[in-house]
């Protein structure tokens, strides 16, 4: 069980975060097409009547959640258990919220490199690495102050 990729885009489909952990294709065009397809698939779903899990391809299914106009998406293997990945997303967003203080899309846009720092502290090789918010925030505070 591991994450294949993490995506974050807004309602207009503009990517705010992208992280690949697994080579799904060596075709450069395909990863761009995948982003476009994922956006169309998820933005068209009815959030009141449809689940946060959807099959995407022969080898990937998506777990996603929307927070204040941003979609956070994780791609995982077809046979993986989905629910724990909702927790992945929720914890990630909580850490962003605590780090930036009531985080919004602008924080992510203007400080995208800090978001990647947070992502590196939480996920390595598609696996969650640390789940203690206190530990994460303490660590991030130290890193953020380094020259």
């Amino acid at each position: 069980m591991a994450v294949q990729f993490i995506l974050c885009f807004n309602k207009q489909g503009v990517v705010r975060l992208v992280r690949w952990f697994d080579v799904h294709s060596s075709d450069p065009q395909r990863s761009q097409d995948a982003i476009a397809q994922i956006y169309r698939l998820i933005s068209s779903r009815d959030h009141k009547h449809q689940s946060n899990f959807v099959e995407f391809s022969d080898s990937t299914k998506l777990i996603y959640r929307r927070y204040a106009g941003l979609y956070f998406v994780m791609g995982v293997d077809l046979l993986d258990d989905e629910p724990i990945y909702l927790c992945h997303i929720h914890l990630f967003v909580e850490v962003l919220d605590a780090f930036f203080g009531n985080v919004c899309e602008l924080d992510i846009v203007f400080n995208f490199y800090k978001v990647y720092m947070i992502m590196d502290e939480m996920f390595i090789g598609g696996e969650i690495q640390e789940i203690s918010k206190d530990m994460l925030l303490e660590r991030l505070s130290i890193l953020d102050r380094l020259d």
Partner: protein
Amino acid sequence: MDRKKTLINSSVSNNNSTIKGLQLFIADLRSAQQAQEQEKRIQSEIVKIKQHFDAAKKKQGNHDRLGGYQRKKYVAKLAYIYITSNTTKLNEILFGLEQTVELLKSSIFSEKFIGYMTLELLYERSEVVAKVNDEVNYQLMKDLSSSDDNFVMLALNFVGVVGELTNRLAYNDDITTGVFKILRSPTSSIYLKKKSALSFLALLKSNHSILTEDLQRKQLWIQRILSLLDDTENYRLTLATIPLIEFIAKYIDPSYCTRLLPQLTEILYNCVVVGTSRSSDNQFPLEYTFANMPNPWLITKVVSLLSILIASPTERDSGSLLQTNNIDNELLNKLRKCVSVAIELGTRQAQDPMERIVQNTVLFSLINFASKLDPSDEAISNSVTALCSLLTSKEINIRYLTLDSLVKLCSSSGKPAIDAVRYKNLDMIFHLLNTERDSSIVRKVVDLLYTFTDVENVKIIVDGLLQYILSPKNLAEPQIKSDIAVKIAILTEKYATDINWFVIISLQLLSLTSNTTINDDEIWQRLCQIVVNNPSLHRITCERLVDYLCKKQASEAIIKAAAFLLGEYSSLITDRISSANLFTLFAEKYFSAPNVAKAMILTTMIKLYKTSPEIGSNVIKFFQLELNSLDIELQTRSFEYLNIIQLAKVNGNTDILQILFEPMPPFNSKSNPLLKRLGSLPASAGSTTLINTPSEASSSTPDLLSKRANSSRSIMVPMPPPSRRNTIDDVNSKISSSEDFSGKDSYYSRQILAPNWREGFTRMISHKQGVLFTSSLMKVFYRITTPDAQQPYVFHISLAFINLTEWEITGLSTQIIPSKTQGNPEYLIMNINTPSTATIGPHKRAEQSYEVSIRKPFDVEDSPILAIHFKCGGSTNTINLKTAIGMTTTLISSDVNPSMHLNLAQFISRWKTLSDALGKEGEYQKSGIKLNKDFRKVETISLEDGLLLLTQTVKRLGFDIVDQTSVRSTLFVSGIIHTKSEGNFGCLMKIQYQVNGTVNVTCKTTTAGPLAKYIVECIKNVLTK
């Protein structure tokens, strides 16, 4: 965004680290009103950055004309351009790679970070890797060995993120060794250790040979990795280590990992049972709690690993995996307790949506794991009931997850789970199917229905699915309908007990006209295949097809199936419809059919002509008309068929048509090609009630009738689902065969024994108790007892581990490794208890026990291996000892069984009888066995004393010795060897004592084969120690 109250009152983000130029650039892009304007801004920025980078290349001496801060800013801008363009501008920013790599070399953290961050983004593209990987690898090696932990951290992050994107890191031994060194080092911080665990995992996924190529490295490195779990309360390190161990268990070698069962059980129990307890004993650390659940991530990872290590009761050929009958009862009860607590938690009402998700996450994880723990039917039924109660949840996510869990449970737990669902909850499931608006959930419902369909309920299920497809209100999901059609076709074929019903349903599927994507070619082709192979279906199918053709709106699939089958078998239904009328029917359909179907119809027409030459003029006219077809294929076919007809007429030889259009022979394929389209269903789904009976030799084709017979038998004897590992497709991930050429498990053969293991081994053959091993750290005692005198082939082995040092021994765990676990092993290890404590104080002891049951004769050299793992004074140790259990261990002393005693005459008589009956078959002879030092000391005294010592030794083993004085230098020995599966064997031996300090042994047994050799080997071990 949720405005949650956070533990930190103010923002953690530090404005001092803001890159101002980058901020301005981003603000410019955001203020651009038109995409064109934004593009213009991006291009002008790219031009500017390129100029700066070009200028930087013209360095003067050592002076860097582009400062680190400037480089960082420009590279960050390029990274932002890449992201915000949805990764479409890679080629336009590649010029910056060189400067990005330059950032890696910086000694300033923030610059280094931007460099690594940008490359983490870009390494997904192979052209980037090709350009810079050598330089990056060099810098990685430097950073991995840096004295600054923050630089090591950056390198580990990079390895972890890109390790699977390219294998160039994984095949660099300096990098893999560097990462492992951090993981292994006792001086590494927990922070770096957990990062290195996941980084190492990423490398291992890219290159298995890191652990499979060198056996010694494999053992050493795996033992180091496993020892990280010995501290069961270090949740931070454990969370990162378990995925690595899971990968090793799944793809490298599970044998090494089974010893972790006590640690994993302890972790799971502490999280699920203790951690959720409301008592004051609950001291689970709050920082690892999420939505009021103690560490749900750790729970799911531990359960996932346990699911790999424990074979379910019905899993066959489980090789070196743990079986429930070999798991300590205390551990098994703890695991079962975890499941029952998870069920109680999962059905508890929680207010917070995320809390409900987390509770159900744990519930689903453990419920599916329960099938590994040999649950009772009642326990399974209770699990199903708990899950089905969640199907009424108003939350759509929970309904989805519940269905997913039910599919897995029915797949893995077999009939009890399936019965609980279908007999009590089928109505609810159909209700979901017809009311749910989420295609994901509909898909899960269909998977669940498919999973528990069998011969009893297949008609109900298929009807329900058909109604769903036919319902006009479900028009929005054509792909789902196509998938359902495939499943209906598979179920109908598999469980058809009524051939009429099979035909009816199949044709009904083909007749669907609402959407062409539903009618896959594979379904009608499969129908034709089955009909051809079953003559009893020919007539009824043709009759039905004619009915469908007579309707106005025949689907393309119906036309194709009809064209093929009616062409073959029209002669069977001439009493119902003449060939002329069939021709007219096809002619009518021809002009509205697609070209592929048209081509088939043309072939059908000439076949009709073959059967009924009287329609020749109509056929010829039709073909002549199609000579003008716009489609070259149709034109060619018409031309060819016309010439065939004319050729037959001219020659007056109608045999040519018979030869060219011979009846279709039976199809050979037995497998259903539709099965590959089941998608994400577990491999075992739908197979729990299927018997894969081998076909009779005379049956070379699939036969629907025999399938029916198989289906009816399946009710009596459900087949266990195949091993979960069958779902692993990657060829590289295949675990090498667990048996080598000698017939022993390869894991057993690969163990490297401790230097002086044989001393204790020999003692264990000779004595029922004593010292098994001594080192400077630890002493191991053993005792062998026979719990039941009526079963002398079952032994209880007690072990004691004594700490000989002044320090604590920690992390004590053991493995009892048999020489064979499959292929009819000679002995079984049972009732294994774990060490009584994992920590031994100075000069204190820990105890353990297990049982061995001998089923048939075997060589004492193949005795079980005891692997002892522990830590002491900062060192990690593994001691492998062979615990001798030989054929002589099954002897019962004649003191207990006086009737075994023989006199010399009886001995000679029986010896002769065996010689007459078996000749050399059951005999084994070994000469020149050198006696040990005890005998050499005695040798100088007298022959009598030597014989006395020999007598005592042989008696201690349990043999009986004939009282005689006729032959002074020889012992005449008898005994009975016991086994469980092959019964008892008589044994006679002559042991001849030589004055030169050697012994000759001749042994005869009452059975042919190697038993005599095995007995002599035991004697030899005892005498030569």
